[in-house]
């Protein structure tokens, strides 16, 4: 990547958040579900990288980084290369420290949010350059500029935040909140959601948990620009064709069929409970009749409240003015504010753990439990699927706390008064969808 000193780089694509790996005791090999909520913790990944860039703006840490960077960049440098680096570092130590101290964030010479113009040789470090004698002072400063470019592409300011934002955990983030803060400098109250399901999307006109977007391409352009494709004023530095191709492919994904054994007799009986308890909201055409207020459903209201008319106007204006080769802004606005939640179709519902828009209910069995009796906390991140309760196991380091703002697991008490046998039958039926 030219903006990264010509270094090869990694980033996210649709699959990072929308392909899940699922393990089960009933299956010999793990399966991958296209379009499902993944277990990837995007905030933790980027948070770790960004913190590392800030911490390497310190002479002692930069020295350790340089040694590790040499090994990573030139696997043949070995102990000899490490020694040469160490010797040369020692000779230039004072100059290196002075350069880092003068510009620890690597921001000097770049306007607010702008990227430095890094040449291919600026961040090159290998045994060959060491043997020719490399100016480690200039290299160290170039690394800081590289870190600045990484942060700028992610819309992270050069001042480390005073307070860490809430941690959404695996499979979740506050995408629109992050975009609003990064693209419009308009931070919003925290309202996390789980990564959305991307199957049978072509059946829907409006997508997302609140039915706020009818432009999948616009949505993915926003995602690209929020996840590392740089923005220079109104110009997005991205390959439009690849974003379009990812979008077109995702529109073709169908819901995954339940791959494990199920009780066919129970499923037959369950169809009636589904018709009585679920179809009125989750069945029928994919129209605005599927929109329900948070007050009516009783679920956490923060996401529905987040995307206001002002927010919709900001995003629509951004997409209308966006300039990137190959992109033609649509004449109709792609985003709107509904203030409500969309009752999604139930195809592949077995694969949608955890449940509700914020992923606050671990299993379908628990969703059929009275809200007051649902788990107040659970562990999120496990890839092991429980076929009886229909959801991932309560394991993994991240603790989901339903008392945290945006994480409430109340509401959606439909089907909770069924008997245990009836619930079993309904769950078996849901496996067939």
């Amino acid at each position, binding site marked *: *990547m030219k903006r*990264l*000193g010509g*270094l*090869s*780089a*990694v*980033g*996210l*694509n*649709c*699959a990072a958040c929308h*392909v899940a*790996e699922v393990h089960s005791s009933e299956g010999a*090999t*793990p*399966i*991958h*579900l*296209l*379009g499902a909520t993944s277990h990837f913790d995007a905030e933790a990944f980027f948070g*770790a*990288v960004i913190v*590392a860039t800030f911490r390497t703006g310190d002479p002692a840490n930069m020295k350790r*980084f340089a040694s*590790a*960077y040499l*090994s*990573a*960049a030139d696997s043949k440098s070995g102990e000899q290369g490490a020694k040469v680096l160490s010797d040369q570092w020692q000779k230039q130590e004072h100059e290196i420290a002075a350069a880092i101290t003068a510009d620890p964030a690597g921001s000097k010479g770049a306007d607010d949010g702008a990227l430095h113009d890094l040449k291919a040789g600026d*961040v090159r470090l290998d045994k060959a350059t060491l043997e020719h004698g490399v100016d480690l002072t200039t290299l160290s400063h170039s690394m800081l500029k*590289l870190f600045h470019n*990484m942060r700028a*592409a*992610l819309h992270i300011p050069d001042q480390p935040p005073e307070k860490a934002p809430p941690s959404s955990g695996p499979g979740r983030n506050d995408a629109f909140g992050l975009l609003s803060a990064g693209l419009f400098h308009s931070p919003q109250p925290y309202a996390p959601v789980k990564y959305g399901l991307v*199957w049978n999307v072509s059946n829907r006109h409006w997508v997302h948990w609140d039915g706020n977007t009818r432009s999948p391409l616009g949505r*993915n352009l926003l*995602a*690209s620009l929020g*996840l*590392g*494709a740089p923005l220079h004023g109104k110009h997005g*530095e*991205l*390959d439009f064709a*690849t*974003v379009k*191709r*990812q979008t077109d*492919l*995702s529109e*073709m*994904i*169908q*819901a*995954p*069929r339940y*791959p494990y054994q199920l009780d066919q007799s129970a499923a037959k009986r369950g169809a009636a409970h589904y018709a009585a308890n679920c179809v009125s909201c989750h069945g029928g055409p994919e129209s605005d009749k599927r929109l329900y207020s948070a007050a009516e459903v009783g679920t956490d209201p923060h996401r529905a409240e987040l995307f206001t008319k002002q927010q919709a106007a900001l995003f629509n204006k951004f997409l209308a003015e966006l300039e990137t080769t190959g992109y033609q802004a649509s004449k109709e606005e792609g985003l709107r504010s509904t203030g409500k939640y969309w009752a999604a179709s139930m195809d592949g519902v077995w694969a949608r753990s955890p449940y509700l828009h914020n992923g606050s209910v671990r299993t379908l069995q628990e969703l059929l439990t009275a809200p007051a009796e649902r788990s107040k906390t659970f562990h999120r991140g496990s890839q092991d699927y429980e076929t009886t309760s229909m959801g991932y196991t309560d394991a993994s380091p991240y603790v989901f706390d339903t008392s945290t703002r945006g994480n409430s697991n109340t509401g959606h008490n439909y089907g909770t008064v069924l008997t245990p046998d009836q619930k079993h039958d309904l769950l078996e039926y849901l496996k067939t969808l």
Partner: protein
Amino acid sequence: MKPCHCRKGISLLLAVASVIAATHHCFAEQKKTLGIDAAQQVPKWSAEDLSFFMHGSMSTEVVPESVLRAFI
């Protein structure tokens, strides 16, 4: 048609057939390795489509590999 042209034609057809079979086999292996029921979820995707969706770019490359390895 002269016998030598017929043999060339058959050889070409066999070569094309083996390439198609190999490609199909590769896609089948790729799906099997990834544990994806592509025939059910994405019946219209080619092997290249699957590879692109899983690993292709959205212009979001932002962390140099060597930097990431060094940080780790």
